[in-house]
């Protein structure tokens, strides 16, 4: 993916701190394209970089996390 978006762009990934995560599940609601919930309500995040057109959704999911467990990382 790198290089497709033009100069200065870096692919981002969602990363969950499993110790902080309490399984509220808002992230899966806000970003179902990449996040689903397991049998106990904890997020399973697809292991692939997030394309630019979905980055806003990813950011919204991270911002909505009540325990600040979800972050966007380059």
């Amino acid at each position, binding site marked *: 993916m790198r290089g497709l978006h033009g100069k200065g762009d870096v692919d981002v990934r969602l990363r969950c701190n*499993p110790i*902080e995560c309490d*399984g509220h599940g808002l992230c899966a609601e806000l970003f179902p394209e990449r996040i689903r919930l*397991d*049998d*106990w309500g904890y997020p399973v995040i697809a292991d692939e970089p997030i394309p630019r057109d979905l980055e806003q959704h990813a950011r919204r999911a991270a911002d909505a996390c009540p325990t600040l467990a979800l972050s966007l990382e380059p």
Partner: protein
Amino acid sequence: MTQALAAKTALPRLLEGLADGPLVTLERHHAVHGPMPSPQELDRAELVELIADCALRGRGGAAFPVARKMRAVAAARGRPILVANGCESEPLSGKDALLLRELPHLVLDGATLVARAIGAQRVILAVKHSAPERALLERALAERAARAFDDVSFEVFAGAATFIAGQETAVVSQINGGPALPTFQPPRVSERGVGRRPTLVQNVETLAHIALIARHGSDWHNAIGSTNEPGSTLVTVVCAGGTRSVFEIAYGTRLDDVLAAARVDTAAIGGLLLGGYFGTWLPTSVAGELRLSHEELRRCDASLGCGVIAALPASACPVAETVRVSAYLASQSAGQCGPCVHGSSAIARRLEAASRGSAGTLAFEDVRRWTLEIQDRGACHHPTGLGRFVGSALRTFRREFEDHARHGPCAACTAKAMLT
């Protein structure tokens, strides 16, 4: 380097001289291995290069390249600290305890050499508080201190004896006065560990190998083993009745040769567990072909881990053994990460119920799915290890598990436990 030592490239290396009794005094240690190189004889950059040339990997279980870890710590900001990890929390492993008990100076030499190489002045030897090796280690340190032997300061740290307490970040957390629980990375301990300083955590066997590499060089080290994985490693072979023995083998050794050395009759075993509680079950049929190297083991989805090889007798019940270990692992979850807390207890309970004959064969489908789903979703490898262990048991002993689900416990289910 003496001629006699330079000439001897064969095995045993780490275990050299042990046949005549433990090497607990400096005198015996030096008689067998010769003196440790001085800072003049081996400068700091040189040791890291040597270790890189040996392709040395950590022996705690994760097999991470040692030189890369050393370089990361040396490059981080602040004076680093070295932690020698001798906690050995894998219940089936016995090699680290053997090293601390019978070859303490080999471990301490390695620790001094590595501390010098990364610029650390403080070395913390982490052992279980219950370990009888503690007193022996203190005695070895006193002997070295009396002779002003080391240019670094040593301290012994007695940690918790729980299963996850030996995990790298859990060891650092305890030394910092915190709970014996893993922490989420980043920040990596190589950047911010003990006292917020860059911290290098190395298994005690890894340090013992370094003590010999520093003495004899990489050509000597690489003269045995396979091309990609030179050198030797310690393995703990667990046999019928739970008897454990430690062997030193060259990488690439055939599994059946190791079993023969441990006097295991391959015709009388029903399965092999490689890597301990976080390991992989394999059918006995592989023993004749399999060579013990990371590369070859990866092809059958296994790894040597911390070197445990358990040979389950055909008379034992693999289902009962797996159910007991998975219950133990579920009970040892740190309780911090949702997928581990819920996943490991769900796996253990469902597996137990199905194996008792009260959940049907379809229950194994749930267990299989959960073992995959919890992979890599904890702060430490606990859920990943449990998932691998149970998943491989379901693959290897599919027929046995289904028989139990249909007909309930077998005659061997109540036999004395071997793995727990």
